[in-house]
């Protein structure tokens, strides 16, 4: 199946109890960092160190294609002359940060195309599985696929991006037993073979979600991208307890039963999220060497002094030195079972018990602002959506507890990528921050607004309904928490989000004491690099 020691974990994650000898803890703070001294007795959850990558990724990919998992023939046996082949791939929201060239998708798709060429397949179309995300720019497509693929397919229109509003190119496959519509990209669903190439950065990705979400329409997505599903996904990162997962699996089985033949290729990366130049980001504070301290101080000073725009550009240029730790191909569910094992094995950290307060430093980057601005809605989504849900079992913070997030939360939006976010912020959040209420009152009008649809289809804009999804992503956290505090954020923006604002961590802890009492327990999530807390 896979060559080499796939997913062999480096030093495991760590739960450190802060004592008087513990140096201050680094917090991400958007395009910068903060150093905070956490109260003695606090616990800091550190991610495992990067796993050992595959020594020969190219060989591993070819081996995976020829030795598929589950009920599937090898790729070469599935390809024949005269067939219609569609290759779908994850968009620019993965991985984070974008990886140094060559991208894993390029490596995998080149291997697939080699096989297709050998079999004499002429009708090949590539499709970026955008769902309702923004279209990729040419530069981004070239980065993801490499110049060879781009130059071979883009000029003839055979490199496409999924369009969830192109009703001529959608096909309704039916409804699941729960009445969920399944409407997919027609080219992909009617091909003789659909190859899906994924990057499984977190445990929410991949499996049936790749096709059932990535190539679906709004009509189909709204069945699981809604408040109800998100409140019942505890967490959406834990496949076993995720309603989001269950819904996608129901749809995936319907797709399979409808006769869509999918050959799924999933990859995992080693967790080396930041280049050596930012070595301190991959290291625990007390192990920082003089060089780490110097680069930290240099980077922090520069980022603090630079105009926000420049600081943002500087950070957005970061390319991660990710390397492949495993690749598996074949039947969707068998492949994904293996993938999830590897991901959890690489990211799991066992944490004993819940805390009253969960603190987290939020980065400059989330899945939805690659090469863009992290607007306040995305800040909320990253903290209360992604980081809060990075758990198996029960949340890191108790019911009614407090989350303290550190992020500058500037009142800034990217008008090209996030036009509907601006209106969401001005029109919806001024009226309500309750996910269910906004879903009932506003979602429809944003989802069908012709201007947003136009920008989504022809520009590089997220779909009009996307900011709602971001807010639904926080629904479980909002439902669970007693208060949310943002440290160092722009006050007006933080208030608009319905959160409380504090200028320092000490102030935030004071504010939190109103909710959780004067002697709370505290857990800090020292991420990224990513981790999954297994809370017992």
């Amino acid at each position, binding site marked *: 199946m896979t060559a080499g020691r796939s997913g062999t974990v480096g030093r495991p994650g760590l739960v450190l109890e802060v*004592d008087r000898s513990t140096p201050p803890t680094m917090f991400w703070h958007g395009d910068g960092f903060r150093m905070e001294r956490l109260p003695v007795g606090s616990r800091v959850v550190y991610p495992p160190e990067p796993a050992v990558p595959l020594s020969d990724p190219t060989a591993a990919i070819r081996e995976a294609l020829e030795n598929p998992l589950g009920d599937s023939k090898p790729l070469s046996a599935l390809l024949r002359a005269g067939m219609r082949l569609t290759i779908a791939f994850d968009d620019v929201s993965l991985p984070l940060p974008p990886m140094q060239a060559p991208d894993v998708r390029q490596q995998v798709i080149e291997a697939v195309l080699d096989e297709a060429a050998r079999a004499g397949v002429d009708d090949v179309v590539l499709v970026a599985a955008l769902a309702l995300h923004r279209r990729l720019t040419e530069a981004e497509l070239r980065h993801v696929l490499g110049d060879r693929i781009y130059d071979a397919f883009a000029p003839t229109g055979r490199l496409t991006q999924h369009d969830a509003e192109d009703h001529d190119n959608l096909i309704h496959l039916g409804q699941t037993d729960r009445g969920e519509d399944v409407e997919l990209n027609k080219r992909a669903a009617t091909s003789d073979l659909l190859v899906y190439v994924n990057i499984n950065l977190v445990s929410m990705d991949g499996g049936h979600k790749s096709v059932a979400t990535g190539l679906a329409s709004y009509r189909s997505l709204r069945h699981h991208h809604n408040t109800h599903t998100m409140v019942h996904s505890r967490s959406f990162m834990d496949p076993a307890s995720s309603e989001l997962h269950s819904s996608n699996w129901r749809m995936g089985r319907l797709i399979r039963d409808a006769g869509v033949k999918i050959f799924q290729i999933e990859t995992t990366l080693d967790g080396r999220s930041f280049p050596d130049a930012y070595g301190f980001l991959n290291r625990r504070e007390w192990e920082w060497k003089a060089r780490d301290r110097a680069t930290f101080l240099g980077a922090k000073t520069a980022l603090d002094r630079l105009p926000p725009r420049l600081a943002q550009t500087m950070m957005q240029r970061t390319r991660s030195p990710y390397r492949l730790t495993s690749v598996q191909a074949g039947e969707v569910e068998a492949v994904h079972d293996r993938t999830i094992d590897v991901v959890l094995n690489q990211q799991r950290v066992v944490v004993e018990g819940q805390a009253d307060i969960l603190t987290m430093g939020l980065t400059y980057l989330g899945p939805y602002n690659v090469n863009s601005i992290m607007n306040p809605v995305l800040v909320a989504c990253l903290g209360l959506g992604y980081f809060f849900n990075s758990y198996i079992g029960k949340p890191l913070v108790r019911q009614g507890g407090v989350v303290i997030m550190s992020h500058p939360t500037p009142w800034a939006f990217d008008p090209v990528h996030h036009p509907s976010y601006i209106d969401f912020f001005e029109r919806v959040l001024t009226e309500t921050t309750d996910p269910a209420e906004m879903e009932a009152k506003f979602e429809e009008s944003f989802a069908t607004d012709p201007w947003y649809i136009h920008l989504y289809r022809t520009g590089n804009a997220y779909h009009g309904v996307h900011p709602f999804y971001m807010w639904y992503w926080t629904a479980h956290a909002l439902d669970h928490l007693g208060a949310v505090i943002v440290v160092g954020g722009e006050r007006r923006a933080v208030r608009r989000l319905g959160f409380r604002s504090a200028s320092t961590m000490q102030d935030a802890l004071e504010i939190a004491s109103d909710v959780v009492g004067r002697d709370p327990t505290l857990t800090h999530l020292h991420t990224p690099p990513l981790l999954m807390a297994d809370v017992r």
Partner: protein
Amino acid sequence: MRSRLVRAALSKVPAGFPWTAPTWPTSLPRPAARGGLGAAYDTTWARTPVARAVRAALLEAVGRPVSSLVASPEVRGLDRLGELEAPAIFVANHSSHLDTLLVLSVLPPRFRHASIVAAGADYFFDRGWKAVVSAGLLGAIPMERQRVNRQSSEMAAERLAEGWNLIIFPEGGRSPDGWAQPFRAGAAHLWIQSGVPVVPIHISGTRAILPKGTVRVRRAPTVVTFGAPVRARGGEDARRFAVRVEQAVAQLADESATDWWSARLRASADSTPPLQGPEGSGWRRSWALPANDGRSRSDSKRWPGV
């Protein structure tokens, strides 16, 4: 007023981590060697001919004049070494950083420039620059002293096998109060294993010059007494051998404090004053210290009588 201003200005300067090195959380075990430092430090470079020549030149041109100026050593018992050939292990009591330089200065020339010094890996080799200074100027090799560690002991044995002489202070650190600490069995283990003769040495007076915990050097006379080489008996275990070497040094101490004959008498009556001083604690131990062992370093004492 001004000092307050200065202090106010200084308080604005960012201090602490990450400007300074991080402290280590107490709950986590600290790895012994980081990045080839500590016991893992490779000292090979310090034994190359060039390094040896530089070291020898420095010792003759700077080290020995300084040591004779500061410590004016009186050397006794060198004749006991007789025809002893390298390699040998020189074992001494330890109360000052000066001991190393002093021993190197008074060793007979055939040993002097072919000796290496066992130095605490956690103290002399914990930082890159300290390791370079220790290995380069003293010819030190790292010795693990906190825990049992085969590595440093084996490395020392290899050096002895190569013909190097080894200077070692088996107390595992400088004396905190002027009295010796028990000799470590770990060091004796090395002596037995290498089969090299052990030369006991007693040093007195260096505590008056530079005791532990100070940085200021004062002049004072010293006495270095060499004893006859000792070898482990067949079947003798490390612990016993350590005690026997310690007794040999104690007898030398007795000899340097009184005279050879009365020391021999007490030795044969098994009543040599213990090197580790009397039982008990506090003032009684310091009260019992020999007069020249730096009980008082007050300047008034040194004022010439008028």
